[in-house]
């Protein structure tokens, strides 16, 4: 098993021109060694296993209802069809739900990131009485399960007359103590010298925050935004409780009502599942570098 170690040394010399600069490559794992072939097979097998359930749902969504109900394999006896998609899109409500999900998730994300970043900056950079206590309270609140809050929150929304309104859906979701914690840790790492230079030049706290701290933290802000967006988009319990009006429902809640009504139409159910998932899968494919790097820079790794 010392082979890879010996194989590595020629790669380290300048003549190893063919090696790709791969960020995730760790030394000692580049060559077509038996170990790497084995790893590749294991990886491929696991990846296929992980993709299969979703691929199978996609395949089913292109079947006729008869084929789907008889348990057809990849392509049913009647061949592929887009009937299921046509049936769902004809319902009209799906567009409204998707639109609701999109704008409410975007609103929650924007508000959460803005207020969390400001609070995190204050906790990281500013001196004020009670700072330790307040930050401690915010950190401690991370362990509060959101489910414990649903009943009093529901009462509060009743009192504010916000039940069955978009505001009632959005506002309670903008408190994210974990995000404040992550952003504070990030601001702690930004060299204070950069800010001091700006302050010597006469920039106030707001200027420094806006034109130095925020631009430097673009990567982590993107990562936080993506995670908030994913979890808000997929949130079920709160939208399920607070919204009754069909026209105000989000996609997960709206689809759930349809499923309860037409539970046996498998092709349509799967087509709905695929339609509801596509936006986030596209989002991940576009931003996957930021997501992975974001997790890395949150300080979860290492240390």
């Amino acid at each position, binding site marked *: 098993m010392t082979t890879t170690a010996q194989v590595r040394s020629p790669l380290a010399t300048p003549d190893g021109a063919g090696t790709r600069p791969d960020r995730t490559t760790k030394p000692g794992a580049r060559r077509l060694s038996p*170990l790497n072939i084995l790893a590749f097979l294991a990886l491929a097998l696991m990846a296929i296993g992980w993709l299969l359930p979703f691929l199978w749902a996609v395949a089913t969504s292109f079947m006729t209802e008869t084929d789907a109900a008889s348990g057809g394999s990849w392509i049913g006896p009647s061949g592929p069809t887009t009937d299921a998609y046509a049936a769902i899109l004809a319902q009209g409500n799906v567009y409204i739900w998707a639109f609701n999900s999109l704008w409410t998730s975007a609103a929650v994300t924007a508000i959460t990131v803005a207020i969390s970043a400001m609070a995190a900056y204050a906790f990281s950079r500013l001196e004020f009485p009670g700072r330790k206590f307040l930050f401690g309270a915010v950190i401690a609140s991370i362990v509060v399960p959101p489910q414990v809050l649903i009943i009093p929150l529901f009462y509060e929304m009743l009192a504010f007359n916000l039940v069955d309104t978009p505001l009632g859906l959005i506002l309670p979701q903008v408190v994210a103590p974990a995000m404040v914690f992550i952003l504070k840790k990030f601001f702690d790492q930004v060299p204070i010298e950069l800010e001091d230079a700006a302050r010597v030049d006469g920039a106030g706290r707001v200027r420094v925050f806006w034109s130095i701290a925020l631009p430097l933290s673009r990567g982590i802000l993107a990562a936080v935004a993506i995670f908030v967006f994913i979890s808000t988009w997929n949130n079920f319990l709160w939208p399920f409780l607070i919204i009754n009006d069909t026209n105000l429902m989000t996609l997960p809640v709206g689809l759930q009502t349809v499923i309860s009504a037409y539970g046996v139409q498998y092709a349509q159910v799967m087509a709905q599942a695929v339609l509801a998932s596509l936006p986030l899968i596209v989002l991940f494919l576009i931003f996957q570098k930021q997501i992975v790097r974001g997790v890395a820079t949150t300080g979860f790794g290492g240390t």
Partner: protein
Amino acid sequence: MTTTAPAASTATVVTGRPGARVRHATGERRETAAAWGFLTPFMIAFVLFLVWPLLHGLYLSFTDQSLTGAGGGFVGFANYAEALGDPVMWRSLGNTVWFTILSTVPLVLLALVMALLVHRGLPAQWLWRLSFFMPYLLASTVISQIWVWIFNPQIGAANRVLAWFGLEPLAWLQSPDTNMYAIVIATVWWTVGFNFLLYLAALQNIPAQQYEAAAIDGAGPWRQLWSITLPQLGQVTVLIVILQMLASLKLFDQAYQMLGGVASDTTRSIVQYIYEAGFVGYRFGYSSAISYVFFAIIVIIGVVQAFAMRRRGEQS
């Protein structure tokens, strides 16, 4: 370092921003004003939507409040006494703990194996990341639909897989013997991607020099794995286990939806019981009391883990 920086900055602030109302205030007071400017929006939301509901919920748990506003009288510890003597509450708690044990082990181990394999830097990185993380992007509604379909006893894929191995078909979600395992399988598939990313990030943070030094000393891949990689993952593993346990204890969405909203004695989680007591039985006071029993358990686990972590930190 922090002693000089504020001194320098306060001096510049006083002269640097004329016209501000607090011009004559000391630097510290100005700093405090700025801090509250930054903090206020978050703190308002924090108090309104977290602190206040938390306190109000505690108050509700001592009343017999119902949804309609009827009742609401103070009942002391009656709700808590009832909860502690309620077999359904204990059963739900037991189910939740059982689910947490069943799901945490594979969710940590599989994530580690996935991250170690992907970190080898083999070709098609984006494909591996997408495969393992993609389910995490799906709504609980979607994963429930997919897995109800897979676990369909007549036409689902799960029984076909069993048939390949010559095993008898199961009534997965319909049978009380198997429905919890079906929910665990779906949950592992759904959420392992997040832990996988955390492990991958931790692996990328291990300095390459350590491997180079070990390789020069003649350490092979297995030796490097045991002596460098795994020990360095200790801290992130503690973090992942804590996050995972806290997440698993909150089981509700997928279990509720995979069983079509039907309460099953073998899968009803504590959160589902909170939901049923409050929003089906309209007993908000009782529901709040169960919430606080649940919260107390989470806090106890959190405190125990924090102590364990601190001791670990002191040792290293």
